[in-house]
């Protein structure tokens, strides 16, 4: 039988487990500051 699961519950289960210590990549922009920020 097909049971409709609550979205939240489904989302919870479908969320890809993040490896321990996962660091999201830095946003592509703005880039690094080469001298100083004013």
């Amino acid at each position, binding site marked *: 039988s097909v049971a409709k699961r609550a979205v939240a519950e489904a989302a919870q289960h479908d969320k890809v487990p993040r490896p321990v210590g996962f660091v999201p990549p830095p946003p*592509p*922009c*703005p*880039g*690094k*500051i*080469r*001298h*100083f*920020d*004013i």
Partner: protein
Amino acid sequence: VPAVPPAPLGCDDPESEAAAEVAVNFINGHSHHGYKFALNRIEDIRVVPQGPNNDIIFLELDLLETKCPILSPTPLANCTVRSFAEHAVEGDCDLKLQRVDGTLSVLASKCHSHADSSEDISKVCPDCPLLVSLNNTDVLETVSAALNAYNSKTTDAYLRLLEIGRAKIQYHPGHVVVTEFAVGATNCSAEEAKANVEACQLLPEDQSNFGFCTAALVKRPSQDLQVDCQLYGHQVPAPDIPLLPRPGVTYAHPGLDTS
């Protein structure tokens, strides 16, 4: 299955750095006033494919003023960026480039430069002298006195003022005016100029010899004037860079808009 669009370029990707380098060289190569600017940060980059090996690139750059006057032959890599405490000047530039078969060219640029706010400097360095308006009477008096003093002592060509680049005034301890200005050699010797200064004109393009002077006028506790000028020698202008306009005295106000 439609091709997956390429991931957006990151601002620190090598391709972005290459585009920024072409952009900064274009800006410095086509500027006629003030100082050279160095890249401080790539704010944003957007690539719009036009077809095979043909992209339009929109670039947003943060630049910082260096200590090299725009006419100086010093390579940008050797130009020191003015520190925050020296009252930095920032440039914001938006550029449109094209990349065809990997070759980058600038199609359009628009820049605005502005000095950092005096409040920010004073917060960090209460005693640091601040930039003043370049038509401040103290500044004009200092530049005039300094150039006259230099021309009265030199055995070389008589120098004319091209533009005042920067000036700061310290009010305590003592009243000190420090200024930097660009000069050009004329067709007169300093001796000839004493007889008829009106006849002394800047050298023609094919012999032009520009230079740069720094001067400090101490008004209190006792009057003292120091001036130092360095001439660059004749430089052959790069073919694609428009020759300098023949300016009168101009002021490279930080707050310049250039397109």
